[in-house]
């Protein structure tokens, strides 16, 4: 097989021109439907960042007043992922809301089992959006699948009047407003928009760290035009998300040939056909990364990707596969760079692949940090404290 050197693709800068976009701008229709009284459009609160998407359109990313649409997989199994997002917000003194009036988007189940339908999926989405709207905070979506799925739902609602009518009826019966956010924003877009501010407060040098990035399928393949691209990153030939953040932190991001491949999650597969997920994650992603880039860490920005790429390495190790690379999210990497505690904040003990050599390479005394975390756990066990607080996390 002939491989062209990948770097060549980035030698030329591709200017993006929204007037040449192959798709039309959905926003015109969203606001038009508002004028016609079909729904309320929740505006992105000011101040906001402006970033460029695939075809050069501008997307608004809110700085604060964000309503955190949590991810079930993150919160349930890798909770340091979401904790790091909140920690970053707190470090910058930003106003945010962590709601209890929120359900999963239910898309994981939908993509796994098909035991739902477009009407139910759209109603779940709009119920969550209505909940955000009532608080005055703007939805920031933690999960890549929720993000992609909500973009699909918005697209369908714009183009299918019958679906809109059905969902409106449901919202009326629930006594909730029919609200659509002006932008569907993924948390990693917020991290990307904040990258220079994060870098300004960086206390851990990462310039000797090599990372590979896995861009989440549902982030950049579903409604592809709504993902962030930058001429500075891969010549705008692939999404700038995560890579842009890591580069701002001084991390050396290395390329590998299977970057477009999915992680192997498969929705149904990760739960009941894990042999597929494991094989794909190891053979098409981790081993290729190891061979071509030999990274210290794999960084990604979605629930399923962190889980699959991390957890799949255990069994592969027993088979002598080339594995053993820790996997974490961009929010965890950004928090770590700013000095967050690896266990109280990043909660790395929920991850599987050994990350201690990586922490050592960063000059972090993981043993000491673990003892600090354990001491807090002991207090909880003895009933001396009910919970670990944010103050404890930074103590």
């Amino acid at each position: 097989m002939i491989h062209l050197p990948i770097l060549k693709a980035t030698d030329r800068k591709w200017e993006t021109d929204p007037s040449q976009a192959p798709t039309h701008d959905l926003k015109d229709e969203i606001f038009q439907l508002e004028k016609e009284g079909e729904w309320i459009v929740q505006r992105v609160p000011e101040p906001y960042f402006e970033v460029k998407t695939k075809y050069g359109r501008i997307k608004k990313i809110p700085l604060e007043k964000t309503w955190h649409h949590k991810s079930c997989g993150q919160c349930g199994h890798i909770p340091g992922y979401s904790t790091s997002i909140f920690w970053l917000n707190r470090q910058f003194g930003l106003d945010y809301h962590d709601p209890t009036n929120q359900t999963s988007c239910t898309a994981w189940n939908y993509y796994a089992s098909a035991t739902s339908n477009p009407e139910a999926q759209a109603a779940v989405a709009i119920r969550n959006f209505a909940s955000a709207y009532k608080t005055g905070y703007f939805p920031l979506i933690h999960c890549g699948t929720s993000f992609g799925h909500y973009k699909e739902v918005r697209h369908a609602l714009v183009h299918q009047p019958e679906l809109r009518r059905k969902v409106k009826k449901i919202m009326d019966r629930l006594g909730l407003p029919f609200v659509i956010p002006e932008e569907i924003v993924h948390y990693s877009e917020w991290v990307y928009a904040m990258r220079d501010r994060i870098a300004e407060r960086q206390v851990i040098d990462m310039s000797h760290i090599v990372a590979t990035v896995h861009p989440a399928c549902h982030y950049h393949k579903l409604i592809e035009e709504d993902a962030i691209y930058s001429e500075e990153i891969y010549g705008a030939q692939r999404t700038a998300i995560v890579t842009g953040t890591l580069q701002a932190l001084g991390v050396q991001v290395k390329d590998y040939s299977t970057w477009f491949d999915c992680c192997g999650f498969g929705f149904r597969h990760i739960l009941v056909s894990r042999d597929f997920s494991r094989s794909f994650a190891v053979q098409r992603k981790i081993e290729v990364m190891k061979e071509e880039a030999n990274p210290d860490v794999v960084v990604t920005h979605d629930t399923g990707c962190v889980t699959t790429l991390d957890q799949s390495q255990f069994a592969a190790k027993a088979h002598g596969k080339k594995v053993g690379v820790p996997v974490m999210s961009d929010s965890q990497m950004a928090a770590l760079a700013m000095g967050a505690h690896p266990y109280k904040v990043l909660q790395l003990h929920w991850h599987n692949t050994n990350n201690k050599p990586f922490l050592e390479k960063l000059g972090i005394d993981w043993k000491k940090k673990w003892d600090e975390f354990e001491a807090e756990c002991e207090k909880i066990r003895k009933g001396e404290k009910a919970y670990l607080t944010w103050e404890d996390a930074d103590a």
Partner: protein
Amino acid sequence: MEFALDLSANKYADVPYEEKERLFNEMKSDERWPHVLYGCYECGICVASCPSARFYDFSPRIIAQAAAREDVDLLYTLMNDSVWDCSQCFSCDRCPRGNSPGQIITVMREVAVRNGLQSAKEALEGYGRIIYKIMSTGTQVSPDMLQPNAFPDWGGHVNEISEHLEVWRKALPPETLHTTETGWKVDEKTLIELYLIWHMTGVMDMIEQIDEGLYMILVDVMEERLEDAGYDVTFD
């Protein structure tokens, strides 16, 4: 080379053509169908990016081709023997014809579930606990799912997590995350609204088709909670 996927017409020769046609018409009448299928160049670009095609005898091209040709027999075979292999990653959305083979598959799966096809039941075997979790609690993944017997191939760390679960959940700074049975703390009112959505959109009918036991458990849980909240709602 021997293929596991038998695409010959004989495989389901005993199923009347009219039945296959009825199911095809259900797919075709779905509002999404004209937005996800525009024909097919038969170029294979979808296959090149498809993870499932690498590890299974599976091809999004064949599915798109069959759908574009309206090959009722072949679609019936694929709906039974192929669609559950898809990873729903939507890498195939790069199709130059503007198709979304992944979404064609989503529609086919929904038709299979709504009609209680045996193959769909088998594909979802062992999956019922997940459906129960998401539909009854509002969060799909919960910390207490991390049990060694559920994830034996993830190694000893799952043991460790389940051993320390209570304390490790309390050792999370965000107050909403101190839960073990749900991903985060969900309000009672939120659940009621979710159940009403399931009720109004006919999702429970799909569950009944696929797993009657699960359906009955879910109905019990939901009706009781709805009644406590003052709603007179039944799922029959």
